[in-house]
C-alpha cells in the first residue's frame, strides 16, 4: 500500500504498461479479470463468525465477535458495528507491528462504510434495552498475505464472516436482565455489499491489481455496490486523478463485477446458510 515508498524498476513499469496496451496483464489476465476467489467460512470455533477469503495470493481472515455493550448516545436503539484492520507483519515485509497505520485505518473505514451504508446488518434488531444495552458487533480483519487488492478481499471476508456469525438467543426480564437460551440465531443480514476497486494505470482501467501492478497504478476508486446495484460507498485513493467520464466508466465496471462476484460467492455459500437454519 502507499505507506511504504515503492521504487519500481522502470523496466517493470514499462512491461506492465506495454502489456496493458495489448489489453493483457503481466500475469496473463484480461484487464477486467479477477484472480481466483476462494472462500472458507466458519473455520474458527471461538469467533461468533469467521471467513477466510483469498483473491489470488492475497489472504484476509475476518473474525466476528458479538458482545454486549452500550449504544451510541445519538442512536440509543441501534446496535453498534465496528471494523478494525490489523496489517500484521506476517502479511508483508513492509508492515510493522504497532498502532494502526493510516493505510490500516483507511482500509478499515472503507470496509466499514460499505457494510454500514448498505445496511448489511440490521442494527435496529440488535437493540436489547433501548439506551442501555445493545449488541456490539466487532469485525476484526487480519491480513495474512498482502499480494494486492486488500480492499476487495477484506470487504468480502467481512460480509461473509458476518453472514456466518451467530448469537445466542435471549429473553429480557422485566428488570432488564438478560437470560440466554441454548439456541443460536444468525445476525440479521439484509444486504450483501461487494467492494470493487478499479485502478487506473495510464489510460487503462483494471480490476484486482496484483502487488506489482499496485506499485505503478496512478489512482484507484473503491466502490461498494449493494444487491440492487445501488452504490453505498466510494473512496478514491492514491494521488492520481480521474476525469468525470472515467468515474462513470469505473462505476459501470464496479457494478458489473460486483454482481458477478456476489453471484459466484453466494452460489457456494447460500446452501450453507440454509443448512444452518
Amino acid at each position, binding site marked *: 500500500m502507499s505507506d511504504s*515508498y515503492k521504487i519500481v524498476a522502470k523496466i517493470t513499469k514499462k512491461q506492465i504498461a506495454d502489456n496493458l496496451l495489448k489489453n493483457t496483464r503481466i500475469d496473463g489476465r484480461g484487464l477486467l479479470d479477477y484472480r481466483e476467489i476462494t472462500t472458507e467460512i466458519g473455520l474458527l470455533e471461538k469467533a461468533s463468525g469467521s471467513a477466510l477469503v483469498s483473491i489470488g495470493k492475497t489472504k484476509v481472515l475476518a473474525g466476528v465477535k458479538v458482545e454486549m455493550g452500550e449504544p451510541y448516545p*445519538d*442512536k440509543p*436503539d*441501534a446496535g453498534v458495528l465496528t471494523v478494525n484492520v490489523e496489517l500484521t507483519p506476517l502479511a508483508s515485509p513492509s508492515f510493522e507491528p504497532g498502532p494502526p497505520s*493510516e493505510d490500516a*485505518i*483507511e482500509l*478499515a*473505514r472503507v470496509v466499514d*462504510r460499505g457494510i*454500514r*451504508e*448498505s*445496511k448489511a446488518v440490521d*442494527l*435496529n434488531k440488535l437493540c436489547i434495552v433501548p439506551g442501555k444495552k445493545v449488541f456490539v458487533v466487532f469485525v476484526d480483519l487480519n491480513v495474512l498475505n498482502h499480494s494486492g487488492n486488500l480492499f476487495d478481499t477484506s470487504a468480502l471476508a467481512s460480509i461473509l464472516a458476518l453472514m456466518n456469525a451467530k448469537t445466542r438467543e435471549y429473553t429480557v426480564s422485566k428488570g432488564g436482565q438478560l437470560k440466554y437460551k441454548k439456541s443460536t440465531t444468525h445476525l440479521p443480514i439484509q444486504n450483501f455489499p461487494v467492494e470493487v476497486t478499479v485502478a487506473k494505470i495510464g489510460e487503462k482501467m483494471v480490476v484486482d491489481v496484483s502487488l506489482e501492478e499496485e506499485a505503478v497504478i496512478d489512482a484507484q*476508486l473503491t466502490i461498494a455496490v*449493494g444487491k440492487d*446495484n*445501488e*452504490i*453505498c*460507498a*466510494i*473512496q*478514491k*485513493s*492514491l*494521488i*492520481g*486523478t*480521474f*476525469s*468525470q467520464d472515467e*468515474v*462513470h466508466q469505473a*462505476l459501470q465496471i464496479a*457494478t458489473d463485477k460486483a454482481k458477478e462476484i456476489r453471484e459466484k460467492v453466494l452460489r457456494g455459500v447460500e446452501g450453507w446458510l440454509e443448512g444452518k437454519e
Partner: protein
Amino acid sequence: MPKKAKSEKLIRRGVRTDGRKIHDLRNIKIEVGPLERADGSAYIEWGNNKILAAVYGPREVHPRHLARPDRAFFRCRYHMAPFSTTERKRPAPSRRERELSKVTRVALEPSILTKLYPRAGIDVFIEILQSDGGTRCAGITAASIALVDAGIPMKDLVAACAAGKIDGKIVLDLNEVEDQEGDADVPVAIMPRTGGISLLQMDGILSQTEFKEALELALEGCKQVYELQKEALTKAYVQEEAPVKDEEKSEGEEQNE
C-alpha cells in the same frame, strides 16, 4: 440507522433548513495569509464552518528517513479542535481525522510540483475551529489557498465541494443536519483547469443515476468555489502590489529586485 426526526422535513417548498435552495452553496468567505509565522495560511468561513489552514515548506523533513530521493515529502494533518463540535471532541486524532488527513493529502498532492524539491518536506495543517458539515471540502479549499500563499509551485488550485441526497432530492453542499439525517453525501475535489477529480468519496445509498447527478452537481459546486478562491487570491495580492506602484512614480529606480 434510525432517522431521528422523520417528521421534520429537510426541504420545505424547495427551501432547506438554513434557507437555501437545493442547488445553492453556503456563503463562503476566504481570507489569505491570516497567520504570521506559517509560510502560507488561509482562513475560510463556509457557512458556519470556520477553518484555518497553515503551510510550511519546502523545508527539511523530520524524521529524516521520510525524505524522498525524487520529490518533496508531502504531509497533511486534518484536526478538529475540541470545541469545534456540539459535544467536546477529544483532542487526540480520531480514526476519522486520520482518514481525512489521508484523503486531504491525496486530494492536494496532484496539484503540487513535488518533484521540484527532492528530499524536502511540505506540511499542511488544517484546524477545524467550528464544524457544520462539509469540513473536509472546506479544509481542502483553504489548504490549497494556503499552499499558494506559501509560494509552493503548483499546477492548479484544488477546489472542493460536496453534493448529497436529502428528502429524496440531490442537493449541493450539505450542512451538518443534512449530513446526519440525509441519505447520502458525495464530497468531491477537482483541479479545475484539467477537470481531474482528486477527491471522491461517498457514503449513503444512491442509485446509479442519482450518483451521476450528485457528481455533476458537486463538480458545478467545485467550479463556483474555484471562482471564489481566485477572487480571494487576486484581492490579497493586488492590494499588496498597489502601494509599490505609487512608489514607482515618486522614487523611480529602486524596485526591480
